[in-house]
């Protein structure tokens, strides 16, 4: 009887709910970094040790591997002033609908004796997180063949541009403006069937004639607006994670763009694009070899990828008290 009740309870728990679709490509954050509770402690004493630790939470849509760099004042704490730890963390995905969370132990720091006549000193410890990340946007776009506005019932009416709030990354595509550029016409002919009728309306014969037509050659292109909506810095590099600590290898604000329409790769310019003042714009278009013609408008799928390195920081104050009061 007892087991029956448990089974009923479980069954009732399963029932009544609805499966909800989770869009992992939402949000404006990637890996979120905070210092662990009491690591470091708010108050420490000179000539002692304390532990550093950070909580990391990948709130974005992509898995990543990166580095965390701890920095501190060597006047107050022993050491070279910085050290780093590597991490790997998964983004939002089945099994981690909110992204993976982890705790990373940074290590121990030794406190020097308070220099001079000071009773205590406040010192700042900074943790910088550096990782490669990707922004992905997939959306339907209308390829408008009615470039001269002759269509009485245009398919693409009111679909001039699309705006977005985030794709599960700190660098977002906030606006895509599609356009179609006519690149000429294509002479063509089609065989047209013309019925010939008599006076009473009866079909006399069927005549076939060649009719010449002109198809408009189209080049779809997209203006893509990019924004850094996170707190951190964006940079590009060919040196991988070593650029996280070697500032000379960074190209600040650089984002690589990749776009395609189904199986058609687009060319983007500028690419890489540089974010300045938090914003950048690039245009992605079809190369001449792939220009196509169509007499009707249609919906197509555009996918855009942005690849970049992201550097974010958090800091905390530690009060070092002189033990000898």
């Amino acid at each position, binding site marked *: 009887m007892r087991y029956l009740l448990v089974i009923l309870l479980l069954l009732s728990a399963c029932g009544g709910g609805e499966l909800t679709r989770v869009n992992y490509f939402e949000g404006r954050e990637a890996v979120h970094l905070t210092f662990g509770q009491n690591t470091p402690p708010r108050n420490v004493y000179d000539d002692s040790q304390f532990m550093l630790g950070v909580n990391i939470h990948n709130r974005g849509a992509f898995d990543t591997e990166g580095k965390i760099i701890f920095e501190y004042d060597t006047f107050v704490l022993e050491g070279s002033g910085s050290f780093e730890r590597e991490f790997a963390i998964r983004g939002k995905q089945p099994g981690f609908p909110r992204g993976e969370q982890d705790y990373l132990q940074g290590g121990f720091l030794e406190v020097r004796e308070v220099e001079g*006549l000071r*009773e205590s000193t406040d010192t700042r410890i900074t943790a910088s997180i550096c990782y490669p990340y990707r922004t992905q946007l997939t959306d339907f776009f209308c390829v408008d063949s009615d470039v001269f506005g002759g269509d009485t019932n245009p398919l693409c009416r009111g679909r001039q541009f699309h705006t977005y709030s985030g794709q599960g990354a700190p660098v977002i595509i906030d606006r895509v403006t599609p356009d179609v550029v006519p690149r000429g016409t294509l002479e063509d002919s089609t065989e047209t069937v013309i019925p010939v009728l008599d006076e009473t309306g009866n079909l006399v014969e069927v005549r076939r004639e060649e009719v010449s037509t002109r198809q408009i050659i189209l080049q779809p292109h997209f203006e893509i607006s990019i924004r850094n909506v996170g707190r951190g810095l964006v940079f590009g590099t060919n040196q991988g994670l070593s650029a996280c600590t070697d500032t000379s290898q960074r190209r*600040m604000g650089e984002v690589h763009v990749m776009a395609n329409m189904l199986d058609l790769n687009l060319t983007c310019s500028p690419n890489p694009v540089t974010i*300045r003042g938090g914003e950048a714009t690039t245009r992605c278009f079809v190369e001449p070899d792939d220009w196509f013609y169509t007499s009707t408008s249609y919906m197509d799928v555009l996918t855009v990828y942005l690849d970049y390195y992201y550097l974010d920081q958090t800091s905390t104050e530690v009060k070092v008290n002189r033990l000898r009061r």
Partner: protein
Amino acid sequence: MVFQFLAVAARGVGTFFARTGRAVASGTRRVFSKGKSASSAEGASTAKASESATNMSGFSEQEKLNTNIENIKVTTADAIKRGMGLEGSAQAQNQEYIDALNKKMEEKSQSSEKEKGYLRQKLQQNTDHYYNKLNNKYENLKSKVDQYTDSEFYKDKADNFLDPEKRANMQMGSKVKRGFGRASNAVKGVIGAGFAGVGWLFRKSEYDRDEVDDGMGQLLLFIAIFVHLFDFFWFEFQVNAETIVGRFAMYLALSLLAYLTLKMSIGDSLKEFTFISLIPLVLLPMLFDYMSNFAIGQEFATQLQMWVFLIPFWLVYLMFIKKISAGFLGGVAKFYLSAIFVFILFILITNFATSLGQATSAEGVDSEEALVDAKDFLVDTFDSIVGTFTGIAGRVTGEVDRRLNETLGYGYQADVERTMDRSGVFLENFRPVGTFYENQSVRMYADFEVRSFMEEFSISFYCILRDRSGREIVGTAVPSSIVVNEFDNRRIFCDFEDVNLSAGSYTARLLSSFNYKTSGYSTYYFVPRSTLEEDTRTTWNQRHNIRERPVNIHTQGPVFLGMNESVRLPIPIFENRTTYFAIDYGVRNNQQRGEIQRITEFTTKLPQALVIEQNQCTIPLFNTGTDVNTGYEIYTYTMDPDENRRILAVSCNIQIPKERVDEVASSGARPVTIYAEVAYDYAIELTTSINIQRLTGGGLG
């Protein structure tokens, strides 16, 4: 009406601070010029600091003393030389005379024996006379020389001059007389303002007399406020022969200004403003003198008078005695002034009552002790109230100071470290142990407290009593010197024994001198230049929650050690070439009751990536090694013994070689501390007045 009121107030305030600013500026210029003495210390950057500095310096006296001693030396040497010369001269002349007479005698050898006898007698007489005359001259000179060289008075002065410690004592002991010099300045200032006001009035009065009267009335009100504040800051409400003159001059000038400018009858003007003046001038001193006959004790009465002086009597008068016309003082202004007055009065009464209650409820305390304790409580409360006023004044003067610093190129600022308990050397509550009568020994004491992280430093104490004529009596400090190791808390006694003091008012001073240090810290942030190209400085600072100016903090103590705040953070550094930036350090006195006697050493510690090359500072800072604790490079400048700096402004060019960029350049926000330390000799002076009571006859019946 209110706007007019405020406009007049603003004019008055503007004039006052403009005048103050000029005075401060000229004073500070004097301070900043090296090697000045005498009035140089009068130019500290704030009014109170200026006062304090003047109290402490005594350098005009020192110069006089130096000059006197030098004169004595020269005169002594001269006299000895002359004396020796005269002695030799006398003997030589005498011998010459004898030779001449002998020669004459030889010539007269053919003369009769009688003539020979006469000549020999005359020769002897002349010789004796001349020799005695010269000898007397020599003896006189010798006695003068002995007086200079052997007398205790000059011997003491010479000793004091030769002994640095005693010289410091003398420097402080022979401080500048306060009353008349300041009083004359005050009178000049007030009279000048008065004439300016009269001129303005007469010019305006040609057009609209009524309006002028209203405005003038308000202007006078604010002048009265400033006179009262002036009385507080300058004379400290002391009642003695010196301050009473200055105070009398101030209030007289105010009365005359009222008489000349307000459209009242002569009698009204004089009566009203003389009434304001008479209270602090005459009535209160009489009241205190009368109170001193009771058991509350002279010292309590002396302290209480400060309290009573704090009550703005001019405000009482305006609020409750004078029939205020609507034009003279508007309703809104009257309301606010009334509220201020009631607030002040409330604080005074409640604190006084509380302190009396606390004091008298203590067990085993007699009435006089209870009142003394009550007085202490009152004084503390008084200090807190004064602190409010001086806080406002401090902010104003701080602004003046800041602008002065900028003008002089010393844009340094710093905050004082906040600690759980106060830190530093404290000498306070200097007072007599009881009531003293003429021809008795006098004993006074002060509370002394040290809380510091300095290991072993010595403090010396000196006691001096001065009567109205300026005669100074050196007392004995017990203990006269102590060695402090971090903490100390005791009482310092001043004994004036066998001094035969007559009844009257005396000024007692307790002086202490010690060597001390102040540490300063500033936190900098460096980022690669490329980072700032992408990230603006503002967003970078916001992201890291960092202020755009460096946070400079110096330890508690009597000295301000600031660093420049002109640098904007983060400092961008070049990755492919040397980066330069500048750091300024400033050292000056920061305590009202003390003064830096001499800065002895300045040290700064920098990370190895920050390099000071030789001749890249305004003073020759030398790299004296590496700090074993922090790995920082130490740069030090030790003052020559004859280098008498009391302020210090150091500016250095710092360079970051491109090879060392990685040591400070940060991925995030790596703090880099720049450390500075200054060692100095410091002196604190406490002054209080003491009344020696007359011994009334008593008799048998």
